[in-house]
C-alpha cells in the first residue's frame, strides 16, 4: 500500500514538476514581452512568433499531460489517497493555468495594440496637416499609415466638442446621459463606418486593411473637429456652410483620393468613394444641426439664472431642412 502511495507521490511530483516548468515557460514569455515593450519598435512578426510559440508550448504540454495521465492511472489505481492528491493537483493546475492565460491575454492585448501607437509628435502633426490636403495621384496606391493614436485622440476631441455643443444647446436626452450619447455617436461613427467601408472595400477589391481604414477615417475627423469647434461657438449659418464645404470637403476629398488610388475599376471607385463621401459629409451636417444652438444660449449659460429665459430665435427650419434636402440630393447625385 505504502509502495503504491509512494509511486503515486512520485507521479504527482512529476505533475508538479511539469507544472512548474510550464509556469516558468509562461513567465519567461511574459517577461520577454515586457522587455520587448521597451524597445517600442517591436514588430508584428515578433508578436506573431511569440503567440505561435506559446500555442505550441501549450499543445506540447497538453500531450505530455495526457501521457502522464495514463501513467498515473496505471500507478495510482489502488491508492485512493493518491487519486485524491492527483485530483487536487489537477484542479489547482487547471485554475492556475486559466488565471495565467487570462493575465497573459490581458497583457498580450495591450502589447498587440502597442505598435499602432508607435508615433512621434512630429509625425502626428504632419499627418494632421496631410489629412486636409487631397493628393491627386491615382495611378499609384497612396501610403496610409496604420496608426491609431491620432484617430483615437481626434475621436476623443470630437467627444469633448460634442459635449460642449450639447451643453450649450440645452440638449436633453431621455434615457441616457450626454456623455454616453456623445461617446456613442463618435465611436459608433468611427468604428461603424470604418467597418462598413472596409466591407465595401472588400467587395470592391480595394487594397486596404482594417487598421488603415480606421486610421484614414480617424484622421478624416480632423476636419469635423475644426468645423464643429468653430461653428458651435460662432453661429452663422453661412459660416457653417463655408466650413462644411471647405474644411469638411477637403478632408473628405483626401480620403476619397486615397481610396481611389487603391481601387481598380470605375464602378468600384464610384461605389466606394460615393458612399464614404456621402456618409462623411452627412455626419458633419447631422452633428452640427442636431446639437446646434443660437447665439444667446452660451451667454445665458455663463451669465446665470437671473437673466430672463433666453428666447430661442425662431430658426428658419424650412430653410435648414431645405438645405439638408439640397445637400442630400447633391450627395446622392455625387453617389450616382
Amino acid at each position, binding site marked *: 500500500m*505504502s*509502495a*503504491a502511495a*509512494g*509511486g*503515486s*507521490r*512520485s507521479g504527482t*511530483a*512529476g505533475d508538479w514538476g511539469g507544472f512548474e516548468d510550464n509556469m516558468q515557460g509562461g513567465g519567461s514569455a511574459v517577461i520577454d514581452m515586457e522587455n520587448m*515593450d*521597451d524597445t*517600442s519598435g517591436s514588430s508584428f512578426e515578433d508578436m506573431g512568433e511569440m503567440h505561435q510559440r506559446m500555442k505550441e508550448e501549450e499543445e506540447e504540454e497538453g500531450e505530455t499531460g495526457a501521457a502522464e495521465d495514463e501513467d498515473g492511472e496505471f*500507478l495510482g489505481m489502488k491508492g485512493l489517497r493518491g487519486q485524491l492528491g492527483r485530483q487536487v493537483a489537477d484542479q489547482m493546475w487547471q485554475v492556475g493555468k486559466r488565471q495565467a492565460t487570462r493575465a497573459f491575454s490581458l497583457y498580450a492585448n*495591450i502589447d498587440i*495594440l*502597442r505598435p*499602432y*501607437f*508607435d*508615433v*512621434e*509628435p512630429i509625425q*502626428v502633426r504632419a499627418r494632421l496637416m496631410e489629412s486636409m490636403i487631397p493628393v491627386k495621384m491615382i495611378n499609384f496606391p497612396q501610403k496610409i499609415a496604420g496608426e491609431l*493614436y491620432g484617430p*483615437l*485622440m481626434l475621436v*476623443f*476631441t470630437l467627444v*469633448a466638442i460634442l*459635449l*460642449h455643443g450639447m*451643453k450649450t444647446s*440645452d*440638449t*436633453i436626452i431621455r434615457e441616457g*446621459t*450626454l*456623455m454616453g450619447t456623445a461617446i456613442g455617436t463618435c465611436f459608433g461613427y468611427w468604428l461603424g463606418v470604418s467597418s462598413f467601408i472596409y466591407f465595401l472595400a472588400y467587395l470592391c477589391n480595394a487594397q486596404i486593411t482594417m487598421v488603415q481604414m480606421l486610421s484614414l477615417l480617424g484622421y478624416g475627423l480632423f476636419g469635423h473637429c475644426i468645423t464643429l469647434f468653430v461653428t458651435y461657438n460662432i453661429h452663422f449659418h453661412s459660416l457653417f456652410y463655408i466650413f462644411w464645404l471647405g474644411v469638411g470637403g477637403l478632408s473628405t476629398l483626401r480620403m476619397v483620393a486615397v481610396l481611389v488610388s487603391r481601387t481598380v475599376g470605375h464602378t468600384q471607385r464610384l461605389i466606394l468613394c460615393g458612399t464614404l463621401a456621402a456618409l462623411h459629409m452627412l455626419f458633419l451636417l447631422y452633428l452640427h444641426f442636431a446639437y446646434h444652438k443660437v447665439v444667446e444660449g452660451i451667454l445665458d*449659460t*455663463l*451669465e*446665470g*439664472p*437671473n437673466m430672463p429665459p433666453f428666447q430661442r430665435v425662431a430658426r428658419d427650419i424650412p430653410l435648414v431642412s431645405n438645405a439638408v434636402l439640397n445637400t442630400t440630393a447633391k450627395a446622392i447625385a455625387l453617389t450616382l
Partner: protein
Amino acid sequence: MAASEGGVDGGPLFAGLADVSISGDIPVEGEITVPVGSRSPDEDYSTLDEPVKDTIMRDLKAVGKKFVHVMYPKKSSALLRDWDLWGPLVLCVSLALMLQGGSADSKDDGGPQFAEVFVIIWFGAVVITLNSKLLGGTISFFQSLCVLGYCIMPLTVAMLVCRLVLLAGSGTISFIIRLIVVVAMFGWSTLASTAFLADSQPPNRKGLVVYPIFLFYFVISWMILTFTPQ
C-alpha cells in the same frame, strides 16, 4: 515494484547532490547570514497592536502629504511611490457633489449630474493611463490613476471658489473672476500632473501624452466654469 520505480525516479534527482562537496579553502561568495536577531525596519512598524486612531491618522497624513505635493509640484516621486486612491475618491466625490447643484428634484435641467462627473473623471483617467501605457510609458496603472486623481485638487478648489463667488452674485464681474480662477487652476492641474507623469515617458513623446491630459482637465474645468446653481 512501485517503490523501486519511485527510487529510480528519485535517484537521478539527488544523485548529483551526493557528489557536491565544498572544501574549506574555497571562499563562498554571497551573503548567507540569516537575519534572526536583527529586526528588519518593517517589523518595527507592527500595526497589530496600535490604536485605531493612529492607523487612521497615519493614512490621513499620507493623503494630506500628497495634497501638499500637488500644491507644490516638485519633481518628487512620493506621489508615485506609494499610491492610494482615497484622495482621488474624496476629490472626485466632492467635485461631483458641488457640481450637482441641488436640483435633483427639479426636472432635468441639462446640468452635470453626479454620475456624469464621476464617470467622466474615472473614465478619462483610465483612458489617459491606457494611452500612456500604449505609448510606452513605464508607470503602473494605479500610479497613474493616483496622480491624475490627486491633480484634480486645484480644480476642486476652483469649484469651491466659484460657488462662493456665485453666492455673492452673478454678473459680468463674477464671470470674469470665475474665468480667471478656473483658467489658473486648470493650468495648475495640467502642469502638476505633467510634472509627475512626464518622467515616466519616453522623452520624445511627451507631447502625445500631455494632449489627452490637457483635454481631460479642459473638459472638467469647462464644466466648472459653465456651472450655475439652479
